[in-house]
């Protein structure tokens, strides 16, 4: 019951936010929070629940971003039509990457995913058809509503909200399904799970592919909002790190953890940049970094564990795996 009340409070805030704070920058901030919440929730499926800390998730993000921009820049279609293409690409790539790398455990898996991400970034940088170092741009002056190029951030906000709700529903459904139980068992001890007959490799691969598909959707939405993707902004390793930090900060392996993380870090980053960025000397990152250090030191299980931790002691132990 209490959970239901909380859910409706969060939902009400989410729906009302852009109407209460109606300046364009605040609305855009809201949209960005939701966008990163989608990406971090997608990462959470494999990084949080399955405990496989992927630092190369930007590959899937890039699949979506490039598919969306490519469908416009290369075929003159609506970027929206690139989303299914991006998903197919991301899932296929996840299968190819996942089969060999998911056998690795712990840091070795993380390192392998970084290597793949960097390789893909370099390949794209040298591929003329994908815009090479210049990147691809989307429609600047929208031809119709399907180009998804709006002046106001409001349409983006509600679109992202819908996608986030779908992402969270899929995650919630997964955690309560057989797959969710397998994943938690694998996270606690893969060997024990295997000895009890849980199909560890297959389950991890499915989670990885599901996560890749949702990450690619986030990438496509990102590219549509900014109307541009280049190797650095679509495939740069820092995006992976950002997504990962958000999930870890809010609480990896918790349904609403990534949302909390994004709701804190995105405004923190944008506001500190707005206030301090113009002063020079990179003060933004100093403040941003300091807050992350403080949270990692005093609340390593993620901020959401402040609330859930009291109710279910020890429920968030696994979150400590995130680097």
């Amino acid at each position, binding site marked *: 019951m209490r959970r239901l009340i909380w859910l409706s*409070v969060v939902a009400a805030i989410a729906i009302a936010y852009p109407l209460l704070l109606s*300046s364009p920058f605040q609305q855009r901030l809201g949209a960005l929070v939701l966008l990163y919440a989608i990406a971090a929730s997608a990462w959470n499926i494999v990084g949080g629940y399955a405990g496989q800390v992927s630092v190369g998730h930007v590959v899937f993000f890039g699949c979506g971003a490039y598919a969306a921009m490519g469908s416009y820049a290369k075929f003159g279609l609506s970027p929206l039509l690139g989303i299914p293409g991006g998903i197919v690409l991301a899932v296929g790539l996840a299968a190819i990457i996942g089969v060999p790398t998911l056998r690795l455990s712990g840091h070795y898996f993380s390192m392998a995913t970084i290597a793949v991400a960097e390789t893909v970034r370099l390949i794209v940088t040298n591929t003329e058809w994908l815009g090479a*170092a210049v990147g691809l741009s989307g429609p*600047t002056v929208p031809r119709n509503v399907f180009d998804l190029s709006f002046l106001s951030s409001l349409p983006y906000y509600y679109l992202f909200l819908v996608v986030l709700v779908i992402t969270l529903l899929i995650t919630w459904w997964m955690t309560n399904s057989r797959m969710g139980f397998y994943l938690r068992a694998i996270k606690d001890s893969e060997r024990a799970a295997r000895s009890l007959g849980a199909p560890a490799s297959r389950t991890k691969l499915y989670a990885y592919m599901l996560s890749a598909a949702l990450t690619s959707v986030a990438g496509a939405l990102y590219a549509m909002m900014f109307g*541009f993707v280049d190797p650095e*902004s679509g495939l740069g390793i820092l995006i992976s790190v950002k997504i990962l930090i958000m999930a870890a900060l809010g609480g990896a392996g918790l349904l609403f953890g990534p949302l909390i993380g994004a709701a804190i870090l995105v405004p923190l980053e944008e506001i500190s940049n707005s206030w301090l960025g*113009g002063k*020079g000397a990179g003060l933004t990152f100093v403040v941003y970094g300091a807050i992350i250090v403080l949270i990692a030191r005093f609340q390593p299980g993620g901020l959401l564990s402040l609330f859930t931790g009291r109710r279910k002691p020890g429920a968030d132990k696994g979150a400590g795996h995130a680097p």
Partner: protein
Amino acid sequence: MNFKHVTRLFCAAAMFLALGSGAQAQDKVIKIGVIMPMSGGTASIGAHAKAALEVAMDIINNAHPELGNLPLAKNAGLAGLGGAKIEAVFADNQGNPATGQNQALRLITEEKVAAVFGSYQSGVTLTSSAIAEKYGVPFLNSESVAANLTERGFKWFFRTTPIATDFAKIYVDFLADIKAQGAKTDSVAVVHDNTEYGTSVANTIAGAFKEKGRPIALDIAYPVNATDLQGQVLQLKDKKPDVVIMISYTSDAILFAKTMQSLDYKPPVLLADDAGYSDPSFTKAVGKISQGAFNRSSWVVGPPGSASAIIADMYKKKSGEEMDDTVARQMQGFFVLADAIDRAGSTEPAKIQAALKATDLKPEQLMIGYKGVKFDDKGQNVLASGAIIQLQDGENYVSVWPKANAEKAPMLPYKGW
């Protein structure tokens, strides 16, 4: 316990609310949003740009009669707006197209800037100018050279810097000039890296020479940040072109100079395309073995007492660095924007846009070596140009072409070490 949670939420909400209260209107101050990389790998660019624009604001906002024909220098503030002062609102793009766009939105909607200026990296300029276009706010770019920026059909985008087609024209003209003086310039080789910059500039130069009926004799591409360039230098040594055009970033430019020395290869004419060859670390490391190298620059310091010499002095006092080509182009772009606002006599975007379109600055009204500033329908400055400089006395470049601004005569052939 529930109450405590609610309080926490309210704290978060308050944080959001605090955002909107930053902007406050002041009398007679015209804000220009400036988006630059203030952090990240190119942070030094942003720091230099900030110092340069502060000098520019000093010149605009205070009386500087010693600067002669430079518009806005004579009196304090903008005469067209009753002596209003220009204020640059700096924002950090972190070298990231998304951050640049967010900051452009903030500058336009929260800071209510009259125009936006930036954003160094072509990708960031692309995204941040898209927001300005949607809002109908003038955007002036002074340093991004990607050709596609002015090919988007934008109505609010203006660019003062020369782009690859302009560089190519400079090289064709310069080589024709020294040929008239007796140098042999028949076969031209282009050496470039495989980045966006390297390939696009090389292609444009090759196209310009072909148009003149003199196709490039040799095109040598190499991977950027190379560890070995002996093969490329040997290829040059074998083909013996009269002119070698180098399009390289700093580390490759240094390695080329060292490799050429160790393989004892000296082209008769070595012409570099800005970038690495303009970097002070290039001249410090291998300037002494690259004597006679020609280079492109739009910035040429005039004799003592001239406007450009005074500005160079002011900049050096502010930043502790010598003025370079990039900074000078940025400063010039800022002057062009301020001049347009002055002539518009208003901060209304449409009036500034009209004034920018009507811009027609003569060379003597500029601090930099353009032939003037005049925008075409796409917003590109059609009079943008550059000069040729040469490494003649150790580690310093001197201007050698065109003759009107030359400090010394071009020294031929390439001397090396």
